[in-house]
């Protein structure tokens, strides 16, 4: 047996691995987004399909190009670009121009993610960063629109009244869609705001698969409910309308840009919830959820540091020692 040639691998323990991969988790996120995606296509037909395809393509191309230029191996197969693309699309309304969606996605994937070091190193949620860049860089987007306007394909009529964000209607004092409609399905606002039920189903799937935990969505939704109540507004409308639910289950829970400590997640969620209501009440229905999440993204490293949990057996200095043995009492709980 000594003369048989062996080709052995030497590596550090552990020598077993679970089947967890980033791509399998991203696949699950895409699956979780299917219900609301399908509802948006049902309502907005070609507009929705075209927007989604444009964003997916832009995300893939952006990531490929950036990584090539930066001399890094392709990471398309981890699926995160696809998730970002779909999420950006779901942040836009059906009347959004394709160049706006494409540039948004480019900024989100390219600048917020790849330039920051790629998946795992970004500080801000790439999809939301891309979405708000339209607002922050309005002059650039307006200029683009003036140039590209003739290249806009005709994809059918859009009813501008029913497509308005329910929160805008709330502000204007106009007739709101009923709560049941808001919950089940309604053709108003962005693609990802068309069905609370679809989003909750998606969120439940992610919770079941243990890709997200209850702390962030739970604290965010409850905070919005309570603070809107304090402001004298209808809390159920605030929870069901706008980008809150997609934000709570899919944006704020983004692994890379949210706290990793349990207490930290609670603080994060509550803070976002408070900010959302302040934005909506004070500034009107313009991407309050997106801005709130992005603001709190910046605090994540600090939040993690101040919410570190005690180590196994870590005893506070003030703990008593036993009389008989003089040894410190280990934590019993």
């Amino acid at each position, binding site marked *: *047996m*000594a003369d*048989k040639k*062996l*080709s*052995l*691998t*030497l*590596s*550090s*323990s*552990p*020598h*077993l*691995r*679970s089947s*967890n*991969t*980033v791509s*399998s*988790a991203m696949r699950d996120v895409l699956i979780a987004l299917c219900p609301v995606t399908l509802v948006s296509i049902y309502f907005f037909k070609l507009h929705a399909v075209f927007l989604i395809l444009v964003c997916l393509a832009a995300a893939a191309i952006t990531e490929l190009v950036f990584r090539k230029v930066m001399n890094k191996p392709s*990471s398309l197969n*981890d699926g995160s670009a696809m998730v970002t693309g779909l999420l950006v699309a779901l942040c836009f309304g059906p009347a959004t121009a394709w160049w706006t969606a494409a540039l948004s996605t480019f900024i989100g994937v390219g600048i917020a993610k790849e330039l920051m*070091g*790629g*998946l*795992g*190193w970004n500080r801000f949620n790439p999809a939301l960063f891309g979405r708000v860049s339209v607002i922050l860089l309005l002059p650039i987007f307006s200029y683009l629109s003036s140039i590209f306007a003739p290249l806009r394909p005709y994809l059918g009529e859009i009813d501008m009244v029913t497509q308005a964000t329910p929160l805008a209607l709330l502000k204007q004092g106009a007739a709101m869609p009923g709560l049941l409609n808001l919950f089940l399905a309604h053709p108003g606002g962005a693609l990802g705001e068309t069905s609370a039920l679809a989003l909750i189903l998606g969120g439940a799937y992610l919770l079941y698969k243990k*890709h997200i*935990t209850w702390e962030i969505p739970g604290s965010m939704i409850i905070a919005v409910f309570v603070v809107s109540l304090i402001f004298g507004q209808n809390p159920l409308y605030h929870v069901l309308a706008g980008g809150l639910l997609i934000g709570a289950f899919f944006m704020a829970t983004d*692994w*890379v840009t*949210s706290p*990793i*400590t349990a207490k930290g997640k609670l603080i994060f969620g509550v803070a976002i919830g408070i900010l959302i209501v302040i934005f909506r009440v004070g500034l009107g229905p313009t991407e309050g959820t997106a801005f709130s999440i992005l603001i709190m993204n910046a605090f994540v490293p600090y939040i*993690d540091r101040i919410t*570190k*949990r*005690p*180590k*196994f*057996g*870590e*005893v506070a200095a003030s703990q008593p020692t036993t009389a*008989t*043995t*003089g*040894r*410190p009492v*280990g*934590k*019993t*709980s």
Partner: protein
Amino acid sequence: MTVKTFPRGVFLPHYKEFSEDKSITTIPLPKEVVIPLHQHTGAPCRALVQPGDEVKAGQRIGESNAFVSAYVHASVDGKVTAVEPRPYFTGTKVESVVIEVNGEQSKPTWQERDVSALSIDQIKDAIKDAGIVGMGGAAFPTHVKLSPPTTIDAFIVNGCECEPFLTCDHRLMVEMTDKLLEGARLAQKVVGAPKIYFGVETNKPDAIEALKAKIAGAADIEVVSLDVKYPQGSEKQLIKAVLNREVPPGKLPLDVGVVVQNVSTCIAIYEACRYGKPLIERVLTVTGDGAAKPQNVLVKIGTPIGHVIEQCGGFKGEIGKIIMGGPMTGWAQSSLDIPVVKGTSGILLFSPAMVVETQHKACVRCGKCVDHCPMNLYPNYIGTYAETGRFAQAAEWGAMDCFECGICAYVCPSNRPIVQFVRQAKRQIAAARAAKN
């Protein structure tokens, strides 16, 4: 039946079916044994023999005057051919006594004595003379461990064997229940614990039954059924599950009034007291999808793993990795000449299909490592800080409290070798602290 457990940890595929039903076997002796003079935690031994010396099985061939150390004995009758550095399972070289095994082995002349008549000091001396160390893997000198400076109110026998694939402790609990019980009683007497607990995972129902039958009626022994979760067999997690006490960071079980010993160690204690037999052989599991005949085998200390594998039917197909120990904390080997030592619990033969990918990606902060870390650390931060050379921050997030169970790397979707990062960090942090002093 209440099943106890500890927080966090992870459920692993256990792969025990390869060998859990295989009774302990013996194999012919090799031509040569290599006995490292340092195969325990503590100070290395110096050789008491030199090339040319004839030695007998059980003869002391290495000793040290340090408080924390253990004697080393010849495991066979033979002639010393060399005392030199030889490859060791951790990848370094350790000064070892190389013995050419005699064709004829003399019959052992152990002298029986009544263990119930032994005093505490006599028991401790027997253990020390026998060179017994913790056989669960840590190899801490047993006579030192059984001399804690604190009051002990519980002695726990570790029958968990939480590592996948390994079944040697399981078979010992089933086949040597009497010796195990006697050994536990002796250890209990030494530490003065009023109660003995046997911690056994529920995937070993025959062991639980065998123990319960043997202790029948004893008021001061309890068999505790434990959930099959890794790392239940880790001392701190075992104490948490059985007694709900947490050993503080940097402290030992004795600081919460507990002493833990592995099943094999307890049996060695009995044999040392009853027969004066030193620790010269141990049961280990040869297994894996690359093992032709997985089994639990009694092996002389110093036997090259190549000989053990050959005597156990050899390889089955292509081999991609050979591991000494369990798959979560064991050591990958590059040579078949590495000797079995006191802490060797298993030899795993992995086919290339079971060899894991070594490329890793960036941490995506999924939090799975944080969810499962039994010490409540933040392996994601320890890993990323260590990887980028920020060792002080790695220490802040818990690097020095990690006992390298491997769960973080196991669950990581980016396949990050976090345990490897921790090991590098520990070295750097220790060096930085030493430099400061």
